[in-house]
């Protein structure tokens, strides 16, 4: 067992709490209802899975921060169930998955506010990968536990239905006028909203009934909003989850599908399931909870997982409602019913897919899984294969100006953020001398830290709405209102089809991305290299030190280029709470097996205990890219032989502290 589920909480289209969720499901209620919170007069679609006690017009107030209110409702329930008050707050981490957050503020500030309100003072990480956000958040929670960054992680997500979201999906033509009927007719999805959180622990302090066994991430690298119709991207995430769980596909006895109900989405997902489950796919029940909860966007994945576990608790599996005959390319057993079906299912696969080509699958198990040992993890060594930077960062690193393949990045239709990120990532691949061909692409990932969507794209979206009205908003610009849009576009441009994610942790967003990528590489069998980095678009305000640009590094399990005959190893990684920088540095050194006395370079915030060591600071720089700049500076110093062992650290006032240790290793002469 990787992690036990010790608490859950949910705010859904049925109302507040786990009990209400079960009552609604058991009674066969339809959670998708007429939207009353805001006017839907200009749309053809007026329904969604809106949280019932927040559907009145009075709640349509952007200042009310409904996202945080819903998140706190669900997180407090989970916190109380798990009796987290017994743990030191610094050992409780928080991972929040949200597609759009509360709009105006940078993503990580939403998570920070939730963390403060809950008293979770371990690392607070925001995952924003559109409709896979909360599923991915739960996946990263497993990694934080495995790294020892926390004793318990509250993980999940929240998203709110707004007029903009309704208008965007309406414009894309993917909404159904009646409550959605996944795998059936009419085609089209229903939006929703809500919040769900689970508490996971490695060593449960109380009774637990379920375990999260593993998760998998992948990129379609195909389209901004639509799925790859072949389903191969989705299948990669599912196989990754099974491998991480140490299970064969035969072990799965129920699938809670993404099942949006759209013409493009359902068949792609079914093709993926068929390829992963083989002949058994025809016998395994596959249902979609969106048929009664609606599509709660970034919160959908965790809410559907919680609905599944609540149903299993009552010896049932959730149904697919509104089913009126199968569409072609649909699962033969969609659990077509208005109410849950009696079942002895124990091992469940939950799948999510989202804008930007993000896929995330997760495997959970019951009692038997709780007692089983976690699959043995053989940690692989990670090397820094290359670095790349654009904007003022490039000049700062004094990198040679040979853009090589980066010059071929096609800027058509890309906003500044996407252009910068893609160019920096291409430069990092060039620097490592890598060309990704065939199967290599599927084993190459991308994990990026950033805090806000492109201002250029959001201004154009605003302009299209001002000029033409909400109904006629620009579909391409709407698709870029998810934080992972530049990351998905970069994955597509460079054919990075392996694990894909987008995270936010204030000024340490970029370093956090590196730390999470390093853990994926060190522990997973489905990836060999990951481009990790940070990107920021120039905004000047609120922090004038924030500098536009992107910095990326190529991390690889294959030895990288270093000073002649040597290579640079990312030997230690640590994430800790916002006030725990010293602890993060200590933990990173310990995981690297390096004594503080061996360090000859510190980059980032000065560490009191290391005052005697040369300390570099990326002066006057802030933002997601700048923390990676410090990492790249350290790599440069090691390459030039100016240092042999470096500590790179960063802290963000209320999100997290992060520390990484880089060492020069002698080259293996036998290679």
């Amino acid at each position, binding site marked *: 067992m990787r992690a036990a589920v010790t608490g859950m909480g949910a705010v859904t289209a049925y109302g507040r709490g786990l009990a209400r969720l079960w009552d609604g499901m058991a009674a066969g209620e339809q959670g998708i209802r007429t939207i009353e919170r805001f006017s839907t007069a200009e749309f053809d679609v007026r329904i969604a899975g809106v949280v019932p006690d927040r559907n009145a017009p009075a709640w349509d107030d952007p200042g009310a921060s409904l996202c945080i209110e819903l998140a706190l409702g669900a997180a407090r329930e989970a916190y109380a169930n798990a009796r987290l008050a017994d743990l030191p707050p610094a050992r409780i981490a928080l991972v929040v998955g949200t597609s759009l957050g509360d709009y105006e503020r940078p993503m990580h500030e939403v998570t920070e506010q939730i963390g403060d309100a809950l008293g979770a003072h371990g690392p607070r990480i925001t995952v924003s990968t559109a409709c896979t956000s909360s599923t991915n958040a739960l996946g990263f929670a497993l990694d934080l536990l495995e790294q020892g960054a926390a004793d318990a992680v509250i993980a999940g997500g929240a998203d709110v239905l707004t007029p903009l979201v309704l208008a965007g999906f309406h*414009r*894309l*033509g993917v909404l159904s006028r009646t409550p959605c009927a996944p795998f059936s007719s009419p085609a089209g999805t229903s939006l929703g909203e809500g919040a769900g959180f689970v508490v996971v622990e490695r060593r449960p302090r109380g009774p637990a009934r379920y375990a999260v066994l593993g998760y998998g991430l992948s990129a379609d690298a195909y*389209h*901004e*909003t*639509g799925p790859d119709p072949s389903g191969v991207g989705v299948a990669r995430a599912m196989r990754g989850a099974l491998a991480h769980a140490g299970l064969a596909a035969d072990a799965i006895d129920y699938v809670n599908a993404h099942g949006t109900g759209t013409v493009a989405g359902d068949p792609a997902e079914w093709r993926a399931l068929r390829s992963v489950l083989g002949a058994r796919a025809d016998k395994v029940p596959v249902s979609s909870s969106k048929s009664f909860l609606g599509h709660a966007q970034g919160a959908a994945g965790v809410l559907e997982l919680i609905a599944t576990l609540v149903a299993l608790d009552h010896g049932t599996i959730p149904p697919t409602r509104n089913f009126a005959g199968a569409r072609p390319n649909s699962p033969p057993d969609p659990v077509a019913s208005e109410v849950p079906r009696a079942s002895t299912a124990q091992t469940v696969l939950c799948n999510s897919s989202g804008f930007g080509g993000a896929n995330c699958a997760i495997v959970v198990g019951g009692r038997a899984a709780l007692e089983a040992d976690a699959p043995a993890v053989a940690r692989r060594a990670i090397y820094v294969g290359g670095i790349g930077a654009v904007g003022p960062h490039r000049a700062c690193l004094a990198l040679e100006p040979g853009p090589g393949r980066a010059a071929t990045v*096609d*800027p*058509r*239709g*890309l*906003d500044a953020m996407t252009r910068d990120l893609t160019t920096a990532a291409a430069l990092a691949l060039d620097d490592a001398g890598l060309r990704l061909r065939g199967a290599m692409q599927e084993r190459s990932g991308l994990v990026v830290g950033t805090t806000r969507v492109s201002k250029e794209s959001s201004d*154009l979206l605003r302009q*299209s709405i001002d*000029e*033409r009205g909400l109904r*006629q908003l*620009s*579909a*391409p610009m709407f*698709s870029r209102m998810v934080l992972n849009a530049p990351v998905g576009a970069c994955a597509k441009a460079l054919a990075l089809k392996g694990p894909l994610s987008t995270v936010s942790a204030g000024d340490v967003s970029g370093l956090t991305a590196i730390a999470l990528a390093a853990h994926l590489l060190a522990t997973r069998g489905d990836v060999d290299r990951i481009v990790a980095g940070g990107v920021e678009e120039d905004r000047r305000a609120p922090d004038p030190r924030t500098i536009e640009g992107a910095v990326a590094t190529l991390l690889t399990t294959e030895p990288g280029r270093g000073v002649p005959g040597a290579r640079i190893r990312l030997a230690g990684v640590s994430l800790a709470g916002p006030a725990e920088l010293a602890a993060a540095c200590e933990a990173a050194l310990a995981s690297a097996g390096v004594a503080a006395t061996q360090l000859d370079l510190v980059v980032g915030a000065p560490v009191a205990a290391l005052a005697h060591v040369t300390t570099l600071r990326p002066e006057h720089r802030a933002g997601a890219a700048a923390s990676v700049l410090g990492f790249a500076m350290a790599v440069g110093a090691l390459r030039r032989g100016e240092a042999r062992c470096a500590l790179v650290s960063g802290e963000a006032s209320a999100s997290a502290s992060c520390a990484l240790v880089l060492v020069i290793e002698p080259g293996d002469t036998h290679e």
Partner: protein
Amino acid sequence: MSETTDLAEMTRRVAQREELLGRLRKILIEHLQLRREVDELDPDAPLFGSGFGLDSLDAVELVVCLETEFGLRVNDPTVLRQSFRSLNTMIDLVLGHAGPA
């Protein structure tokens, strides 16, 4: 009919096409962020795939632009598919709907 009238008519039609081409190129550059010079956008190049690299989201935006810029509401997917092949086929669509001017 004299040759001069034919010539005038032809000149007028060419000017009309030129004017529409200019407006459509502007839409591609401004709304779809096609980072190209105006005269780089070959009126016969494919809009999607190997040509300008547009995709289905851009197609949604083009449908809106036809409506807001030219007052054209086109819902027939076959007509759209044929008309969204190149800038010239889009010009045909706009002229066809505008009727013989």
